[in-house]
């Protein structure tokens, strides 16, 4: 028998779960009919998770989920929650996730699809050779020391650009210029340093990827123009995060916060929601370590951008790749909303600042911040723009991806006896991967259609469709 959940429809795609029990605020979620069916099919497990988030101290009305909501451990994926430091608001490592500043960076090339077609095999091999993607895989010619890593955690991509790994103008198009000011490497453990040193400039496995794509459709000419996107143009999408350094930071602070929470009178309905007051020594230490890991992740995508430029050049395609935008979708940041400073947790959600916001690069300011929504490797990804609606309703947040439809085991079963790499090749998509098992698990049909998420986001007014990107080359771990 199905489990019921008490919610009401506020408008077409917006629903409200009224505050009940230990909840301190209402919860709001965005869904289409289709998404609503998926939520019912999982007995509203992810909606129950956002209700759990709403029980945390100092939460600012309301707790939110984006249209790509799905079940996570503790916080749901697609969850957005803001906390007021002046009202005992908390910070929760589980509300950021293990992969701190997992995010995406989109590059544009001054090339058309036909320019790539002639050299796609060369380019695929060059990218696979240049960007380390399997477990333990590193570039032996690009090494950093412990002092370098400290600088990287403090200053992010800016430090790398100063060493020749990128261009000054890249920085302008990274969320917060890739440098969170609260970063404090002194709160990062030796173990996390060790893991970071071995993994800077690596893609990782699972759902992380590098794709060469082309712009397949433009929905908003004006915004696309501002972003420098045109039909048929080649783009590169990089999806990765802070690797083992971020995982280690999260692990250590979840444990610390589990011990600290009762001392601050914080009641936890789920241990993975372990939290401490923002204004406490533990809270400040985590924010310092988390911001350092976030800067590392921005730097990771910066170094991979440098490797990507090398690969394009070696395949005879020039080095004209420009950073369109780089954003985090696992993060916690201080921002001003409704006239007060709050700490916004986004776990599997994208910052989506609207038109006119000074945080949006000048060139894009009239259009709003680019919002990058990766789909699956067989279909498409999307570029959206932040809206006034996202500023008004979701603490300036929007969707971040498609979400899985099949478990990894079910995907493997569905791939049995098939050659997914060859199937993709028949669709005109070249795949280079360290592990065939990863490709099977990540096959297109293992994911929900990202278009469903994007349509709901657009219709709800918390993001505006700008362009669709189709894959040509996929590099996986």
């Amino acid at each position, binding site marked *: 028998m199905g489990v019921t959940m008490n919610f009401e429809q506020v408008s077409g795609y917006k629903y409200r779960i009224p505050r009940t029990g230990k909840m301190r605020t209402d919860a709001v979620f965005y869904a289409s009919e289709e998404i609503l069916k998926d939520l019912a099919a*999982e007995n509203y497990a992810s909606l129950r998770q956002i209700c759990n988030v709403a029980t945390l101290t100092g939460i600012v009305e309301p707790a939110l989920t984006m249209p790509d909501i799905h079940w996570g451990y503790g916080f749901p994926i697609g969850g957005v929650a803001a906390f007021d430091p002046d009202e005992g608001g908390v910070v929760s490592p589980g509300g950021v996730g293990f992969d701190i500043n997992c995010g995406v960076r989109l590059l544009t090339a001054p090339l058309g699809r036909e320019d790539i077609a002639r050299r796609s095999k060369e380019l695929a091999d060059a990218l696979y050779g240049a960007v380390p993607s399997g477990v333990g895989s590193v570039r032996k010619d690009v090494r950093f020391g412990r002092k370098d890593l400290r600088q990287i955690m403090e200053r992010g991509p800016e430090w790398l650009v100063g060493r020749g790994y990128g261009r000054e103008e890249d920085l302008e198009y990274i969320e917060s210029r890739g440098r969170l000011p609260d970063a404090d490497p002194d709160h990062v453990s030796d173990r996390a340093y060790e893991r970071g040193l071995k993994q800077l400039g690596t893609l*990782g496995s699972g759902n992380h990827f590098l794709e060469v794509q082309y712009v397949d459709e433009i929905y908003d000419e004006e915004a696309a123009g501002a972003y420098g996107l045109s039909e048929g143009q080649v783009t590169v999408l990089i999806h990765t995060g802070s690797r083992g350094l971020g995982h280690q930071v999260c*692990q250590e602070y979840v*444990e610390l916060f*589990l011990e600290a929470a009762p001392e601050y009178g914080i009641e936890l309905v789920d241990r*993975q929601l372990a939290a401490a007051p923002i204004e406490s020594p533990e809270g400040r230490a985590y924010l310092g370590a988390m911001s350092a890991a976030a800067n590392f992740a921005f730097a990771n995508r910066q170094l991979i951008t440098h490797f990507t430029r090398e690969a394009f050049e070696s395949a005879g395609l020039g080095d004209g790749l420009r950073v369109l935008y780089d954003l985090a979708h696992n993060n916690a940041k201080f921002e001003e909303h409704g006239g007060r400073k709050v700490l916004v947790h986004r776990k599997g959600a994208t910052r989506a600042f609207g038109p006119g916001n000074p945080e949006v690069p000048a060139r894009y300011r009239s259009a709003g911040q680019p919002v990058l929504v990766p789909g699956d490797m067989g279909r498409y990804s999307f570029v959206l723009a932040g809206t006034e609606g996202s500023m008004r309703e979701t603490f300036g947040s929007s969707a971040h991806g498609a979400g899985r439809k099949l*478990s990894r085991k079910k995907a493997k079963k569905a791939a049995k006896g098939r050659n997914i790499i060859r199937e993709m090749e028949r669709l005109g998509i070249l795949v280079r991967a360290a*592990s065939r098992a990863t490709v099977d698990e990540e096959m297109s049909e293992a994911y929900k259609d990202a278009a469903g998420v994007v349509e709901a986001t657009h219709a709800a007014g918390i993001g505006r469709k700008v362009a669709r990107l189709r894959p040509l080359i996929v590099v996986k*771990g």
Partner: protein
Amino acid sequence: MLDHTADVGFELEAPTLEALFDAAREGLLEILMQRPPRSGSEERVVELSARDLEALMVRWINELVYLVQTAGFVPARADITVSGQGGKRSLRARLAGEPLDPEAHGWLGEVKSATFHGLCVEAGDGGWRARVILDV
């Protein structure tokens, strides 16, 4: 093996606590690789402690993730002792294994961490049970 859309995990049963922790090692290796080694000549000793058995289980799995994915060492066998009570539980493991060889071991993909969500380690009918969810 638990089979959830977004994450993976395992449910374990063993006659002793030591066997339960060893089963977690085996479960983790099954998630990481298709052909985990059964023996190895390299040795390592791991010593961990935590305030309860559940936190100790999370630490144990995360230590193994670190050993495999960062140190490149696959613990093929473990000789485990669990000690302590109440507010402090400790684990000592003598590990035998070999260097990670992604190709030979049939590497499947990285694990980010063990989580505290839905975690349980408890005594059952004549033995021990555990449930662990991993972020992959």
